[in-house]
């Protein structure tokens, strides 16, 4: 009997996947809800196979009417053939996203059948120090934006003794934390969300490996509240993982114990900054902490804490399973392994592209993305979220790697590329960057709190043509103060979109 695969991913649901799944179920067919393969312009992308293991053929943009009309056959105009053989997928190098869109996200048997737990098993056969070495050798760097080497961060935590939680007596139990930053607030990014909805066990497995390597007993995931589907999936995944013995007192029968709690954010962008996140997790206002002390030494509740982004942690099982060497063989210079790029905004074929570092923005936007959705000329690509620079159309040949991007004053951030066509007013975008910073600043440091408000005012005067030369000078000076004087990346990087708009699109400010 035919089995249907319909994504349960929030993006797929936003264009009707639930209704399609219900229509198939109503016919009495078997329906497996998966994550999304990341070909988001084709959602709802429905696949079918002879049985759960069989190769799958697919149809794009399926509607309830298609199903009612019995249109899902090879003659249908939206017939895709073998989905796994589509060029958009075959050109990718999927490590982290290996299983996303293929498995039932919370079915433990499906997870193991597709290579799940191999990384954790491989890690538990080695000593914690050997696991640390493997992560260092892989060259894995933090995927949240800063790109700090994960192995070095982990080593710092491993070198600390566990501590009692803040406010508890020295005789209390002592802990270390693995804390996952799932506060994916950057516009144009959704890879954390899709991973948590499509393969949550890989995140939990990565956390367990990290905990084993550094000697942590507690895990925490800080998930943004804008992701209710991920919240539900993670909650189920944690419960199932405990039942399976993948979390808890004795993981996979070993004497290593580790458990995970998931907490929700409350609509604050700055809480994606790691120290603000810690404050929020401790139940307070999300105000940035001054460093030092580093979170690796005094982190969540004052104990040594590894803080990594979802994609960083989710890279680890594949590194342990497939080998640090194989991972390090991908990429360029000191940007090793794969990055999950997210094609967003005004783009014909938006979605997930996991590739080794070094692929150019042009390949991503044009070859994979097919240019703009509107069909109008591309004007700019914002790279790395609201704090990232706008690249003009003739700068897209830059390789996507930490070093090459730094050279042109850009950054990869969380790997999101937001495409704009020529209808965009870049002065309006620069103003928005400042307004967003003013709205979301935690208020702790002056350059960010006041600077962003003044930034909006200066840009308004500049756009009003009020002594443009003096205002431009003032804006650049203000950006310099924010860059140099802010406590964290919120104020410190807001000048990126502003100055890149000013540098590359000066005509829009007149």
């Amino acid at each position: 009997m035919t089995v249907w695969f319909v994504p349960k991913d929030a993006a797929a649901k936003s264009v009707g996947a639930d209704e399609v799944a219900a229509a198939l179920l109503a016919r009495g067919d078997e329906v497996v809800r998966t994550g999304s393969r990341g070909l988001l312009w084709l959602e709802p992308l429905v696949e079918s196979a002879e049985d759960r293991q069989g190769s799958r053929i697919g149809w794009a943009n399926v509607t309830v009417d298609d199903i009612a009309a019995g249109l899902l056959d090879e003659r249908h105009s939206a017939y895709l053939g073998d989905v796994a053989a589509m060029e958009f997928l075959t050109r990718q190098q999927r490590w982290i996203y290996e299983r996303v869109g293929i498995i039932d996200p919370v079915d433990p048997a499906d997870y193991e059948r597709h290579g799940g737990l191999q990384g954790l098993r491989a890690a538990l056969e080695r000593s914690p120090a050997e696991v640390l070495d493997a992560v260092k050798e892989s060259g894995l760097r933090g995927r949240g934006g800063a790109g700090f080497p994960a192995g070095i961060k982990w080593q710092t935590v491993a070198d600390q003794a566990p501590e009692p939680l803040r406010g508890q007596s020295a005789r209390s139990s002592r802990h270390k934390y693995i804390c996952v930053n799932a506060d994916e607030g950057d516009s144009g990014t959704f890879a954390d969300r899709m991973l948590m909805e499509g393969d949550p066990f890989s995140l939990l497995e990565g956390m367990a490996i990290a905990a084993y390597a550094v000697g942590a007993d507690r895990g925490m995931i800080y998930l943004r509240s804008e992701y209710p589907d991920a919240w539900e999936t993670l909650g189920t995944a944690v419960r199932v993982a405990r039942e399976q013995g993948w979390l808890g007192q004795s993981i996979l029968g070993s004497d290593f114990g580790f458990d995970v709690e998931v907490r929700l954010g409350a609509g604050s962008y700055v809480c994606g900054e790691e120290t603000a996140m810690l404050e929020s997790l401790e139940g307070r206002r999300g105000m940035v902490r001054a460093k030092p002390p580093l979170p690796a030494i005094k982190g969540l509740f004052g104990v040594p804490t590894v803080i990594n982004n979802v994609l960083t942690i989710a890279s680890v099982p594949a590194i342990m399973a497939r080998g640090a060497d194989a991972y390090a063989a991908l990429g360029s210079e000191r940007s090793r392994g794969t990055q999950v790029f997210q094609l967003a905004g005004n783009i014909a074929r938006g979605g997930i592209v996991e590739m080794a570092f070094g692929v150019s923005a042009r390949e991503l936007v044009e070859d994979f993305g097919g240019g703009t959705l509107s069909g109008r000329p591309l004007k700019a690509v914002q790279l790395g979220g609201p704090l990232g620079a706008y690249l003009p159309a003739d700068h897209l040949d830059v390789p996507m790697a930490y070093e090459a991007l730094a050279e042109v004053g850009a950054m990869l951030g969380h790997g999101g590329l937001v495409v704009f066509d020529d209808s965009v007013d870049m002065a309006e975008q620069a103003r928005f960057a400042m307004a967003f910073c003013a709205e979301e600043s935690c208020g702790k440091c002056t350059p960010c709190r006041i600077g962003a408000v003044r930034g909006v005012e200066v840009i308004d005067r500049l756009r009003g043509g009020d002594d443009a030369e003096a205002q431009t000078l003032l804006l650049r000076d203000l950006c310099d103060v924010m860059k140099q004087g802010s406590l964290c990346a919120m104020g410190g990087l807001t000048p990126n979109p502003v100055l890149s708009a000013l540098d590359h699109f000066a005509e829009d400010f007149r």
Partner: protein
Amino acid sequence: MTSRSAYPQWNEQEAQAYLEAVVREHDGPVLLCLQALQEVYGHVPPPAVALVATLCNVSRADVTGVLSFYADLRTEPPPAIPVRLCAAEACQAVGGRALAAAWQQTCRDDQQLAQDTGVDEPIFCLGNCALGPAALVDGQLVGRATVATLRARVTRTREATGGSDGGAK
């Protein structure tokens, strides 16, 4: 997390029972307490501040500080069918600003719609950046949103919940 069209009346004893469980089971419970109350009552009513402060052993100023910091936390009941449009860059790139303006105009022209859906409080990124403009209608994510699809969603929700008189009671 998702909104509902009918919430129970504030009941201090009942609230205290919810909160005692939260405080017992979690470290750093202030934000969790406020979130738990909002989940149950749709908002955090004024008497909750002193209650949370007492149970968490912090000052009322601390609790008020947390309550005022987070955009999610509200001190007034939500509209019956909240509609929130993404105001971030990826949605701007596909006409998000024009959609927001058109939606606001639609609400000005239709008093009932405005009353049901509330003032548009923009939201920054719903993680649906390849299928924008994105919006949330009563907690449900909508991709490639237009005024027509938003209206249809509101109407469907209104029918499913049996009218528009919940929420604000």
